[in-house]
């Protein structure tokens, strides 16, 4: 076990702050939410997505309730679908939530997520997996219960899906060791989220990678 690859809660919060700083610069909608007693908190991102196959329209009919969806680039809007019948778009808009919390027991960040329709109906794990990249699907479908569980959110007390943190150290260790070798500062949260995010349908824009090196250059 590599002691060095664990991070303390203060370090976690520091990395989250740096991460959110960049998120604000690029409009990526991450924000920090303190817990009620403000002793800790978590990072949160919400975005809305229109499910592809269900948003179709006549030509000329208004296709998407775009105006009511202020969130950003996670839209998957159909192109040129002019020949199909209009369906009720509202029920097919999905709200995704990603929360990054600190796990005291594992001393690593943990990714909580959930998705629901606008009317509040939650998506099943199976539905969420449709947004998961092919390369991860096979692995996850083979043994989903080893990796994704449903748990109560430690702060909100609501059910969320959780990407289990027990292997975090394993995939973070080589990255961190490597960067230490070359004396490079790495934002743990950025690295970690870039790895685990795609597994659950969350992709980080490339500029986060540059943000870390930018911060390094500024501090040198």
């Amino acid at each position, binding site marked *: 076990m590599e002691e060095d690859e664990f991070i303390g809660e203060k370090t976690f919060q520091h990395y989250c702050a740096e991460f959110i700083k960049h998120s604000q610069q690029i409009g990526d909608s991450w924000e920090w939410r303190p817990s009620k007693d403000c002793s800790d908190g978590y990072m949160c991102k919400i975005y809305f997505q229109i499910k592809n196959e269900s948003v179709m329209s006549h030509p000329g009919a208004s296709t998407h309730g775009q105006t009511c969806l202020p969130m950003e680039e996670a839209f998957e809007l159909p192109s040129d679908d002019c020949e199909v019948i209009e369906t009720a778009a509202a029920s097919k808009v999905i709200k995704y939530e990603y929360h990054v919390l600190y796990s005291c027991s594992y001393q690593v960040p943990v990714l909580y997520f959930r998705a629901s329709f606008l009317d509040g109906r939650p998506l099943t794990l199976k539905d969420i997996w449709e947004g998961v*990249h*092919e390369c991860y699907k096979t692995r996850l479908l083979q043994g989903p219960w080893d990796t994704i569980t449903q748990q109560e959110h430690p702060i909100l007390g609501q059910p969320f899906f959780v990407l289990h943190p027990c292997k975090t150290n394993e995939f973070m260790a080589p990255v961190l060791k*490597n960067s230490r070798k070359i004396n490079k500062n790495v934002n743990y949260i950025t690295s970690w989220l870039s790895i685990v995010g795609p597994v659950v349908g969350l992709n980080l824009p490339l500029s986060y990678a540059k943000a870390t090196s930018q911060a390094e250059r500024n501090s040198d």
Partner: protein
Amino acid sequence: MTSREHQVSLWNWVPLLRRLLSRPLHALNRYFRSPVSPSKMAEEPQSMLQLPPSGAAGGEGLTEVSPETTTPEPPSSAAVSPGTEEPAGDTKKKIDILLKAVGDTPIMKTKKWAVERTRTIQGLIDFIKKFLKLVASEQLFIYVNQSFAPSPDQEVGTLYECFGSDGKLVLHYCKSQAWG
């Protein structure tokens, strides 16, 4: 009209034939590869790196981009591209990638590859996994800047624009059984 068209197309072949005959035989294979799929969609499960078949100059991959083995641009499916010189860096369809192993991951014998810009990270991962003969239960991660894992559907061309230097893109790869 028809015969003239035929004449014109025949003449087009002459310079090609001249060039082909002046090259070593194994390099001819480059001209007969199937064209790159124009699709830029995320998943290209069947597409492989356009590697020259075994016996091509430079070994299994486009390794050291040394002057005498400079790869000419393979012609697109229809037209024969005139000129044999490598076009200027920015207009190259392929970019040079240097792959570096991290941690306990096996080191690839060939580290330097020429890869189409439109190849996705996922495509590259699949290729490296096959090359290293990893089992299905092993995950492979690729990093830019030694710390950031791009999305699986990110194109290497874009990564080159953002993170490339000295004419190449350095990518680190790491094997893991993270979700095993």
